[in-house]
């Protein structure tokens, strides 16, 4: 007979979980990597929110005496060629990065859901036109599309958000549309019709809530891409302009000239970008596993 520790198995499945706190603990134990991801993101959110408390330096003040200062007691992560404190710039840069990525993802989800839902649910000529529009957008890779949009809109914080959000739309619209296509054939949609609901009401109250799970998974995944795209745009000079400190621009300002003489100017912004993207990816994977237990381990 197989020796099976029933209490341990039940524990693993979360049988005796009660209350919000122990439910959270259970989730952490079940998805440790996801918890690490969430922790990383929370850390950066806290950094962005409390930037003024964390560092006494102003990220924009130049100081020729400190130009290219090495990391040390005075400047924790050194200073750039204009003598701006790197630590302060990375801390304030978190604000820019998170603002752009969260803003662009939210806007992109809104657009993608609007297009995907209406095109999948109502079909017909609108679907045809919307899908060709999505095809055109999808012909370009995410970065190139954002590049084109940013170049067309001109550099500013808002425009960067809009440019990236447009680039995120095709993916989201596709997923929502295909989900909607299968959902609208389900009997509960017919039942809602038999109760006298209008088509728009059915789309919003019956179909949309059923697409939320894949949307959440997708949105977390896009959060990381948005940060990467923002950095790339900034690196190419098309991103968020001065005076907002941006990790991507910090890289581009120093990569060519100082990578040998002052490598900390490249390493620390690069680390910050990697860490945030890593965090969103870990969290995204965990959420996917949580919402779709058939997939993954």
């Amino acid at each position: 007979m197989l020796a099976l520790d029933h209490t341990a198995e039940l524990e693993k499945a979360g049988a005796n979980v009660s209350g919000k706190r122990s439910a959270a603990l259970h989730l952490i134990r079940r998805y440790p990597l996801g918890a690490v991801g969430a922790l990383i993101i929370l850390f950066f959110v806290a950094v962005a929110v409390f930037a003024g408390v964390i560092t006494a330096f102003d990220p924009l003040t130049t100081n020729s005496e400190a130009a290219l200062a090495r990391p040390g007691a005075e400047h924790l992560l050194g200073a750039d060629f204009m003598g701006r404190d790197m630590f302060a710039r990375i801390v304030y840069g978190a604000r820019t990065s998170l603002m752009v990525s969260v803003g662009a993802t939210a806007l992109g989800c809104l657009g993608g859901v609007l297009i995907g839902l209406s095109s999948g649910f109502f079909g017909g000529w609108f679907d045809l036109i919307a899908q060709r529009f999505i095809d055109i957008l999808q012909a370009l890779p995410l970065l190139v599309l954002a590049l084109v949009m940013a170049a067309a809109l001109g550099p500013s914080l808002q425009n960067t958000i809009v440019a990236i959000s447009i680039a995120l739309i095709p993916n989201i619209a596709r997923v929502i549309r295909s989900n909607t296509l299968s959902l609208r054939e389900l009997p509960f949609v017919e039942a809602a019709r038999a109760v006298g609901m209008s088509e728009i009401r059915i789309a919003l109250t019956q179909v949309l809530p059923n697409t939320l799970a894949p949307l959440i998974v997708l949105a977390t995944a896009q959060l990381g891409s948005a940060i990467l795209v923002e950095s790339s745009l900034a690196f190419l000079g098309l991103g968020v302009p001065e005076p907002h400190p941006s990790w991507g621009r910090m890289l581009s300002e120093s990569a060519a000239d100082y990578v040998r003489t002052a490598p900390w100017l490249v390493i620390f912004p690069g680390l910050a970008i990697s860490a945030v993207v890593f965090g969103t990816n870990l969290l995204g994977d965990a959420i996917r596993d949580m919402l779709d237990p058939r997939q993954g381990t």
Partner: protein
Amino acid sequence: MTSQSAVDMADPTVDAPVLQVANLQTWFYTRAGLVKAVDGVSFSLARGETLAIVGESGCGKSVTSLSLMRLVADPPGRIVGGTVHLGDTDLLRLDEAAMRAVRGNRIAMIFQEPMTSLNPVMTIGRQISESVILHQRLSRAAALERTIEMLRLVGIPEPAQRVKEYPHLLSGGMRQRAMIAMALACNPEVLIADEPTSALDVTIQAQILEVIAKLRRELGTAVILITHDLGVVAETADRVIVMYAGRKVEEASTMDLFVRPMHPYTRGLINSIPRLSLMRGESQAAVTRLQEIPGMVPALSNLPEGCAFAPRCALASDTCRREYPPYEQKQPGQWAACWHSDQIERIDHD
């Protein structure tokens, strides 16, 4: 006698029917050709009455019910003719917005699949009250109260608790009860039950039928019961319509239909019910093979000339194959479309 006059003569003892369907025609325009899924069906329904529509799969009974709700998918389906009078309103003449105000309010429907007919991400209470709010302009709290009352009425235990739960916590039978509660929440005049028990196991079937019968008595709702199960018909229906290949082939009170069916198809359906007394072997001589109707329902896109049932019928003659039989009264209160109703007894002895 035409089908039109059959409607006029249907049971004169009751007052004005709640629902009167005349010469309903729902055709499908498909690649395989024109499919007359419902072709000239007429019937009427009195207040509090249960009318069963029976027939094999593909005979047009579900399309009939969807046509009454105006829920036939278009394309390919189209209601091309007839009238459906609910009270004084002809449902087929209403615009879509007016029809939406009727659906779920004056005429409601429950479906075959209780497992998937409820939205999985919405609580039971939310789903049922949604329909009440839609039609009765009640506040959320009042609608929820009405919902709880309805759930109690259909026999769901602890309704105040259940309204907060999601459908996956309910069994199939409980979900069908919830569907019935949703359908009846606005107190409709007509309830269409499209195979309400086919997806449930037998013990639950009886309970669901009992719930429907009880609510019909208490609320006075007229019920159209779509089914292929003659056992269900015998238990619940007052009157029966038998459909074959999109047409009504026989109509009678349930008693008459079972005692002396006038159409060979009806006879075949009744004979293909397994009889427990025979199977127990009370009399060895009486043990006979379960009878079946030979052949299959013809493709509706390619119906034979004359009677559609002729290719499967033991009584078929040349007349049958040449000309569609008139739909006429064979006995008081019993109509059928058959040339050879008088020879019906022959079937059992063949």
